[in-house]
């Protein structure tokens, strides 16, 4: 029987939610030779949300985004993007999809301006005003050749090419890792604006969790190719917490056997526990059992991340 502290393993999406979802994956497995990048992943991304796609290096985030964008046919399983099988995406769907890749391939000989104009001719919905605002916000000189740009500036080009046509679904693979904090902040504000104005579904994978946390409202986590979390961020914030127990009456036990305790540090009189539980009375019961004072603090995404990704090991 699974521990109540562990989220149940995410299951295949129900038919009604899948219909409205911009990306639906059913039993997706992706292998590259002997290496399995994704293993039986099923999920339906909620529409009109900013979804944080989290996972350690090699967890399968980029592979998942590439499958959703139709760039990579999965080894097995089915993926539907914007209502169409991802292998059959055509101009009507692709003009509503934006992808910002971690290592994008560009037409190096073009200037930024030339590349934007070239790409703009493919998208009827290309917004020149948005392009101008983003160029200013990202501080990118349009006259420079792509080949001369630094890695951070190349990333900015990718952001422009992926967003100026106002996509309904925007997939971003590590878009902010090479950006300075000021530009990073502006990009995150822009993503919020996209959601507010156009109802765009944004999927963003990033390791800079402190920034991403400010905008996401849904979390999908992968670990070693398996889906370990697929929940609203509010729910995670309500269930993950850090409890500090301070005992006045005597020593605290060296370890706590409660199943909702995920991580613990105890020095006898004080114990710091990281927990996951939706039981609002659990804290009071624990404090009473050990005759201790308890302070509780919510965890941020950075602190939740190792606990999220560790769920696969604990589940097995």
């Amino acid at each position, binding site marked *: 029987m699974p521990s109540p502290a562990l989220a149940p393993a995410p299951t295949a999406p129900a038919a009604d939610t899948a219909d409205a979802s911009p990306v639906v994956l059913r039993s997706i497995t992706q292998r590259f030779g002997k290496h399995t990048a994704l293993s039986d992943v099923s999920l339906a991304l909620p529409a009109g949300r900013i979804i944080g796609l989290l996972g350690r290096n090699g967890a399968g985030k980029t592979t998942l985004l590439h499958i959703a964008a139709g*760039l990579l046919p999965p080894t097995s399983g089915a993926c539907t993007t914007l209502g169409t099988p991802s292998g059959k995406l055509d101009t009507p769907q692709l003009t509503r999809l934006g992808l910002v890749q971690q290592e994008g391939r560009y*037409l190096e*000989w073009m200037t930024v301006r030339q590349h934007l104009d070239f790409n703009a001719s493919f998208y009827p919905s290309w917004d020149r005003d948005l392009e101008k605002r983003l160029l200013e916000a990202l501080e990118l000189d349009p006259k420079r050749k792509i080949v001369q740009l630094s890695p951070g500036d190349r990333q900015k080009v990718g952001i422009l090419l992926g967003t100026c046509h106002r996509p309904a679904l925007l997939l971003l693979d590590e878009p902010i890792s090479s950006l300075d904090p000021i530009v990073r902040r502006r990009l995150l504000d822009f993503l919020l604006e996209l959601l507010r104005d156009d109802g765009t579904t944004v999927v963003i994978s990033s390791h800079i969790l402190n920034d991403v946390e400010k905008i996401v409202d849904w979390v999908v986590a992968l670990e070693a190719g398996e889906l370990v979390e697929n929940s609203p961020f509010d729910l995670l914030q309500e269930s993950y917490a850090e409890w500090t127990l301070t005992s006045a009456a005597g020593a605290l036990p060296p370890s706590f056997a409660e199943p909702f305790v995920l991580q613990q540090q105890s020095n006898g009189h004080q114990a710091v526990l990281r927990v996951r539980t939706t039981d609002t009375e659990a804290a009071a019961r624990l404090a009473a059992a050990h005759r201790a004072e308890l302070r509780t603090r919510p965890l941020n995404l950075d602190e939740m991340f190792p606990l999220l990704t560790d769920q696969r090991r604990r589940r097995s």
Partner: protein
Amino acid sequence: MPLRAYLTLLRPVRTLLLGLINSGCCGVLFLRYCGNCSLAEALYFTCVIVGPLIFGDLLAGPAHEFMNRSVFPLIPGARRQLRRQHLHGLLALAALLLAAASAVPSEFPLAAQLGLIAAGLTLPLLNSRRVGWSYFVLLLLISPLLTTGPRETFVAACQAAPWAFLSLGLLCAGFCIRHIFSASFAGNYWKMSYVVSIQTLAPFYDTTMMQRRREDNERRAIAKRTRPEREWRIAAVGTSVREWSRAIRHARFGGTSWLWSEPGIVAFCAFPVIVYGAIPLVFAYFGRGNAISLQEYCGMLIAGAHGTELASSPGHFAFTSLPYTSIMVTMFASSVAAVPTTRFPLSRRRLADSLFVEMLRLGALGCLGFALAYVVVIVGAVLVTRTPIDYSLFARALSHIRILPTVVLLGIAFVFSTVRYRWMASFGGYLLWAAVGGALGGLAMAITESILGAYIWLPGLILSAWLARTAIRRYYATHDLNRLMPWVARFAGRCA
């Protein structure tokens, strides 16, 4: 650097295998069958001249590769230790080559042999940019020296002044080693374009390192370019495949001047005809004991233009370049696929169709080059021999020009159908591709020069176009759009 670390870099088994295969093909077989050398001569020249160049290049590759990595200047003593190990490798190879040469009776004194081996083993060190075809060009330049008239002069010089050859060889070796392993060169080499040794790439050429090398070299070439690129003047690309193929053309060639991309392709595809006309001329003109004049050679070309049998003389040889031209045209046409396909919001099927339309256009340009080359060769021969122009001179040329598009389309179908098999991106794959291209071209020539050719030409062309389009569609239906097709990753190079 301990010996074990050096051997890890060198991969001695791979080095020896590649060296033996290349020496066998480019040395013994080439000298024996193209250069009319006896077996003993071919073996000897391979041990003393061709083999050292090949093995020297194989030895230099890993050293270049290591020195080209940014970590190299940070390793204390790496330069001196690598130089020492490289010298040990050179000495070992020199001893082996000398021992092999001594097993074959020859007229060369030992001192001259040593000098030639020393120079041959170390000259490839100067190929610091690892230009793959450089030692093939060197071999092509040296081959007439070993196989034609000047050979006697060369042998006499070696016999007369063996110590001069030894001194020059050792001086050359000293210069090459000193230059490449100097502190100033090694200190800057890691900033130069990305290099990879053949041992790293073999046996497959579709590696991500090859792709990385191509991208890195492409970026450097683009950064150095000063000529203006072409402007994209279309505000909105419509829905037709033709319009999308224009966008693909711009992505592929927009950064290149029109002169290089369009007439350049025409000229490049004319190249095999010119070369196949010129190589027999060089061997015939400078041939030992049977030299012919330019007038006589042009007379053979004119006789060959009329003829119906396949290559049987230098004159016919020039007009049997169709198999080789078809390979070049196929490669150019396929290189269209070197665009970043993720940039186009097209379904996989329409992407495939747009690429196919652009490949047809490039293929047509290549065929035009082939046709022009034939015309130039025939008209040139007519002018030299002062023969009256007779339209029957163009009969054979026209029959080959007519069949080339069919052969190229079949070649494209073959390339896209077999690219999923990894071994096709290997040396064996190249050989197979050349063999298939040659067989198709030869078969096509035999058919078109018969009465049957007139009837099957059009149906054959339509069928080959259908096969090519189907193969491209099938490939792009399942291909990872993030990865470049292996053939074009190697070939597209600086064409973008």
